[in-house]
């Protein structure tokens, strides 16, 4: 070849650009890593916490959207990409997951929660902007089977199979969302973000109550299943005693998942990870997040 064509030159330049970008990127990453180390001594940044929440909201939004429409959130117009454009991870779910609702009020509730969780995803993505993580890989099939086994509810569990199963599937998430936001609230430094996080925390509690009230009404079998799930969550988070299923204790219903002081439980990010990973190791993941969450808290 006698001379370098324009295209080749362009390629070389591109390579060089890439190379320098990589070098620069490496330096930037090193800086970031150092920064994280520094932060680790005082706690995660607000962005770290909001991204942690965004992982959970992706999970909830996918579950409810699939249950009510049979489609994933990206199929109904939401973005699962990161703020920088990285594609979101795949969702593992059975074919035709749309739940056959026969109770109009329950169907309406499911629709409302779907909308709320989608709004939470969009709100957090907007708040995080370029810092928003992409959706991690999500599993809504093997995860439920594994949790059902752990809870002694059988070797398989399909949360999309019936209204009652849908309620129990929703139950698994909602109280965890409440405890996660409560634990996170104390870590957030921005007053604005704190206000929004508390507002989302409340909405998750409304959801949890609505779901738990309907499980109560569904009868003793559903109540017992919720108790088994609550015990499993408490075991997974290492406390063994910070979760109350739906039922009746001393003449009082247990719609609220709270302690003797009338306060809902708070979970650390580590405890929440252990639950949603089904006991899988931090950084490795499992259950609902088979390849771990995205972001720094994972």
């Amino acid at each position, binding site marked *: 070849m006698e001379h370098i064509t324009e295209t080749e030159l362009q390629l070389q330049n591109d390579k060089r650009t890439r190379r320098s970008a990589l070098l620069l990127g490496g330096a930037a990453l090193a800086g970031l890593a150092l920064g994280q180390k520094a932060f680790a001594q005082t706690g995660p940044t607000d962005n770290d916490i909001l991204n942690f929440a965004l992982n959970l909201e992706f999970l909830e939004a996918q579950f409810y959207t699939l249950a009510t429409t049979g489609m994933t959130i990206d199929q109904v117009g939401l973005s699962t990409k990161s703020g920088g454009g990285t594609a979101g991870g795949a969702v593992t779910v059975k074919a035709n997951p749309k739940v056959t609702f026969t109770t109009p009020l329950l169907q309406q509730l499911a629709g409302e929660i779907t909308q709320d969780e989608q709004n939470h995803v969009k709100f957090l993505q907007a708040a995080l902007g370029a810092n928003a993580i992409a959706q991690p890989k999500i599993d809504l099939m093997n995860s439920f089977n594994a949790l059902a086994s752990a809870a002694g509810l059988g070797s398989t569990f399909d949360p999309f199979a019936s209204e009652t199963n849908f309620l129990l599937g929703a139950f698994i998430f909602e109280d965890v969302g409440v405890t996660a936001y409560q634990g996170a609230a104390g870590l957030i430094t921005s007053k604005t973000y704190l206000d929004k996080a508390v507002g989302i925390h409340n909405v998750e509690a409304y959801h949890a109550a*609505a779901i738990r009230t309907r499980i109560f009404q569904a009868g003793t079998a559903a109540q017992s299943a919720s108790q088994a799930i609550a015990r499993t969550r408490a075991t997974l988070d290492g406390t063994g005693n910070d979760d109350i299923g739906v039922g009746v204790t001393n003449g009082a219903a247990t719609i609220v998942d709270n302690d003797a002081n009338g306060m809902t439980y708070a979970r650390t990010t580590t405890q929440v990870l252990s639950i949603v990973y089904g006991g899988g190791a931090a950084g490795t993941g499992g259950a609902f997040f088979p390849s771990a969450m995205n972001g720094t808290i994972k």
Partner: protein
Amino acid sequence: MNNKLPGRGPLSRRSFLAGAGGAAALVTAAGCGDSTPMTALPTNTASTTNAITDADILNFALNLEYLEAEFYLRAVTGSGLSDADVGSGAGAVTGGTQVVFKTPAIQQYAQEIANDELAHVRFLRKALGSAAVSRPAIDLSNSFNAAAMAAGIGSAFNPFADENSFIVGAFTFEDVGVTAYHGAAGLLTSKTYLAAAAGILATEAYHAGEIRTLITELGAPYLTYANQISALRAAAGGGAETMLSGSTIVAADSNSISYDRTTDQVLHIVYLSAASGVVSKGGFFPNGLNGTIKATAS
């Protein structure tokens, strides 16, 4: 799916807020205009933030918990807080009789909420120690009649008359508690108190979600009553309401984040007063709250 869900109805969360001015006319001609501030913490609180201590805020919350505890305990047991739980020189309680529950589940729901509110009173009194305010005078009779009149429900309303009326009575308080704690959370300086407030607040949100679910199941006329009360609260308390329906169990804004209210807005509601003007007593607290947060700034 990305748009409004069909069940959400013609009155979206936002448009209902905007329409709250009409209901204000029922209270008084004076307070119609101000239904806008509901996302940021409004200035009337911010201007006095420096003077407000965490103890002031917890005492403000304690007044509200006294009210809720008296309501639920009297409904469930026929008697209210014991002398050990109200402080010295406590105000009298007017009204409040045991409800004859015909449905075991509703009695169990009521018992649980009564237990929670009692626990909140005890927790806050303990946290405040000698700084805890005593129970102020509480009216559970004339207050409900006046609220019913102002809301257009009728000339009288007795929430203790039967179990369904009781649920509507409960509705009067629960969402207010959520917005009050949400607004207060941002004012607290102590992380410990913030965590406690978040735990109580989520419990109130569970209660609210449960009560709202039950009212949608009851349907007319209770659902209508609830929305008339909601409109009254919106008029007095700066909007911050979501019209209740089967597809709007959660009271939240268009981002699916729960509302917050300033202490002024909460006072206007519990004093059953107009949205503007300086008031220091009335409605559920005939002699006003105890503590430093007692009179509205405007």
